[in-house]
């Protein structure tokens, strides 16, 4: 991957600079009503073992049948990642024993995944962008859940999750810093949410990452990597990378060697711990699942999904910059979430687009944060903001008054027009009224008028303040300025 400067991602060790090499395997739960190979529902949070079919529980004679919705979701995701869609793919069995793996194997895709090479652009805080390669995406079944804390000597098994479709999305080892890895996970989550193929709720386990980290001297071949399993937030992904890279550098600088192994991140202690070594790694005995025929996709099926894809964040951002004249930063903030982007477009329609962006990314987002609202639950609607912008544009409200009105909107959930009417927060643009106020102020401050006229220009601000006070802040500031200038001249 092209990189303008490696300097930013180098870590200084005691013996010189090191570079991190990071690749991610993200497990994303597919949004679907039923499981990958059974009709059991996938709703999160149900009572244990209430969403389990005989297939999920691995009963004798039960057979998997592919859920077409999950296939479509994987293809849509592949298309969203600019990836090759493999019209011929194969489901394999990954064999291992565990109490929450009912069949004794996981149905996955090994040598022939449904999606091949693709790429994704990530945006970094310094305003630069990078392209991260996608190695592949494959479909697989999730396992159940072992509950070890319900009984002193027994483990309980909940199979609700067993058989739910996961997409494993594997990146190339293209990332060079924790920030890049964090940006990758966030961007991937955004794309998945745009596509509606994964809800991206990491706290519910809908998205989990296995993080591969190695370090090397800049320009040298890849070092030995360690895989940190099942990291479940963007923050932890970044923290895990930092502590793991530091651990590896310390070992290497002390003359040691990195052992290839699987590790776990303990956020409480801020460290990674060995889970199993390469020697202890499972031999999964992959082989094509004889219960399922190879998956053959009709090119027309893929084309139809492609034609039906929503506009994705990169395209939307480019359009916001080009069509609305937004800064790349503002556009980036708005498209990070499809609901925000849609909300913004609803507000901006036929209005001053930049003013709309300022209101959405500024006061509106601030209100969501302070009130704990989401775009979906916010009582302040796009129509409210449109109305507010109209009131600003037609001069009814000054910027200051508009902010005041918005505060009332947050409190009362009323429409801005109603607030303006009820509270009389209307800006005064009637030149007669402003002239009258100015006359009154000048009359009361004849001395200051004389001083101003003799060259003390600084007093202009004083007069503005007095006129605004006289009009209870409702006077149109521009009109006040203009009229004051004329009238003070005499």
């Amino acid at each position: 991957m092209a990189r303008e400067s490696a300097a930013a991602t180098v870590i200084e060790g005691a013996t010189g600079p090191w570079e991190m090499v990071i690749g991610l395997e993200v497990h994303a739960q597919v949004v679907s009503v039923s499981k990958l190979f059974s009709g059991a529902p996938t709703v999160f949070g149900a009572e244990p073992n209430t969403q389990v079919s005989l297939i999920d529980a691995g009963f004798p004679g039960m057979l998997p049948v592919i859920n077409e919705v999950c296939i479509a979701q994987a293809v849509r995701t592949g298309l969203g990642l600019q990836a090759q869609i493999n019209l011929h793919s194969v489901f394999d069995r990954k064999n291992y024993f565990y109490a929450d793996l009912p069949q004794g194997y996981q149905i996955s895709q090994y040598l022939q995944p449904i999606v091949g090479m693709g790429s994704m652009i990530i945006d970094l805080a310094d305003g630069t962008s990078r392209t991260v390669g996608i190695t592949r995406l494959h479909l697989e079944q999730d396992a159940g859940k072992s509950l070890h804390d319900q009984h002193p000597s027994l483990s309980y098994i909940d199979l609700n999750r067993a058989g739910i479709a996961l997409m494993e999305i594997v990146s190339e080892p293209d990332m060079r810093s924790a920030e890049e890895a964090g940006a990758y996970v966030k961007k991937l989550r955004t794309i998945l949410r745009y596509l509606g193929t994964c809800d991206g709720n990491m706290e519910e386990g809908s998205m989990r990452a296995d993080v591969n980290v190695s370090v090397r001297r800049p320009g040298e071949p890849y070092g030995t990597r360690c895989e940190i399993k099942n990291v479940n937030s963007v923050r932890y992904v970044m923290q895990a990378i930092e502590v793991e890279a530091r651990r590896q550098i310390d070992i290497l600088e002390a003359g040691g060697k990195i052992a290839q192994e699987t590790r776990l991140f303990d956020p409480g202690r801020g460290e990674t711990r060995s889970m199993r070594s390469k020697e202890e790694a499972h031999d999964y005995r992959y082989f094509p699942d004889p219960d399922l025929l190879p998956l053959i996709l009709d090119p027309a099926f893929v084309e139809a999904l492609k034609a039906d894809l929503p506009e994705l964040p990169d395209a939307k951002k480019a359009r916001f910059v080009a069509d609305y004249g937004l800064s790349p930063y503002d556009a980036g903030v708005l498209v990070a979430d499809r609901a925000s982007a849609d909300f913004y477009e609803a507000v901006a329609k036929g209005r001053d687009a930049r003013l709309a962006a300022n209101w959405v990314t500024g006061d509106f987002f601030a209100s969501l944060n302070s009130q704990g609202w989401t775009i979906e639950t916010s009582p302040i609607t796009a129509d409210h903001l449109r109305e507010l912008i109209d009131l600003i544009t037609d001069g009814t409200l000054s910027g200051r008054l508009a902010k005041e009105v918005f505060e009332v909107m947050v409190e009362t959930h009323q429409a801005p027009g109603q607030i303006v009417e009820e509270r009389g927060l209307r800006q005064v643009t009637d030149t007669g009224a402003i002239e009258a106020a100015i006359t009154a102020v000048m009359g009361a401050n004849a001395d200051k008028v004389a001083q101003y006229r003799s060259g003390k220009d600084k007093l202009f601000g004083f007069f503005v303040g007095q006129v605004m006070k006289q009009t209870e802040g409702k006077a149109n500031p521009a009109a006040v300025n203009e009229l004051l200038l004329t009238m003070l001249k005499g």
Partner: protein
Amino acid sequence: MSALTDLSLADALTGLAAKDFSARELATAHVEAVAAASTLNAFVVETPERALADAEASDARRARGEALPLDGIPLAIKDLFCTKGIRTTAASRILGDFTPTYESTVTSQLWRDGAVMLGKLNLDEFAMGSSNETSAFGPVKNPWRRTGDTAVLVPGGSSGGSAAAVAARLCLGATGTDTGGSIRQPAAFTGIVGIKPTYGRCSRWGIVAFASSLDQAGPMTRTVTDAALMLRSMAGHDPKDSTSANRAVPDYTKALTGDVRGLKIGIPKEYRIEGVPAEIGRLWEQGIEWLKAAGAEIREISLPHTSQSLPTYYIVAPAEASSNLARYDGVRFGARQPGRTLPEMYEKTRGAGFGREVRRRILIGTYVLSAGYYDAYYLKAQKVRSLIARDFTEAYKEVDAILAPATPSAAFAAGEKSADPLAMYLNDVFTVTANLAGLPALAVPAGLNSQGLPLGLQVIGRAFDEETVLRIGHVIEKAAAFTARPDNWWRV
């Protein structure tokens, strides 16, 4: 012995239709026969109440003029088919007293068509065996004995209980499953008819899996017509089995025209195997003569990869089995041996639950799929499997069906081969190719050997051309006029 148990399935249907007897009378006769034949150990579970209830329901339907295609026909089910509310064992201790809450597609279609359930039949554990000696419920005895000899013979396997029950007139037909010959070999050993349909013809849903890419259910009966009748009910597309074929099911009895004139029958030269008894060769020659006489055209063909079939089969089948049997872990159903840790529970449960042959095949299967061995064994076997299938594709450019022996010998004595797995595996030499290629193949009784034991011929057809296979089998059946039957030595 009641005459009712001697009827063919087809004749029983005629008799029921003519009100010569009721389904209840027919069921009662069979229930009594089953009860009197416990020496054979053909049944794992007997369901006499269910049989009589089914029969009464059948009589009621017939009285209303709503008779179904198999209405009132007493059948028994290989205990590899899951049956709702009836214990299902796969002849393994590991399933404990597992009682499914569901019914396999094949058996539910038999009940849909009015058949009467007599019980569940013994088999080799998880269908792994060729003599029905690996069952956790003890071996099944072949109803046949050598002339003048009381030595117990094996009925073949793995559908040994099915074969014995049909041959001993305990039921009018039975279901079997065939992974490498498990319908055809026991059918040949017991002088009955068995057909392994094309892979995908019958749904595998609800059948305890042995080797998923090879397993196929089929009927075992005393006549070809009976097999045609039963197969029609068993076959059909099932959306619950992704490997089941979405093709219409013909009325197979219509294929039994007795006319094979102009059909080209292939005789694979590679099936002339050294060490196979001369009487097998003679029977084969006899079969060729019968078909020639009936107007068929005989052609020698070559299936060059035949010698690779057994090694290929004994890699593919155990590999799939090792994975299919992983679910028997004591966690969710079946027998569990407690352990202090999860691995200890697994080891104890599976060690106690699986018999020697099953353990052997799990070990072989695990080995051939292991890192470093996969390419040399499993992948190579899959490639050879494609070559074996291609042999048949090539052959079927020249011929319409293939005639071969069903087994390399007649039934052997209990214990004769159980200590030597390789000798046992050689029993499948003529049958595994049809499984590897997914083709339909029928075993039909064609004569007796010098010791008075039945021998079978095998007809292998094109994929989904069960009709030609049955038609040829029907002609052989007629020509052979096989009327021999075991005497009732087992009856108490």
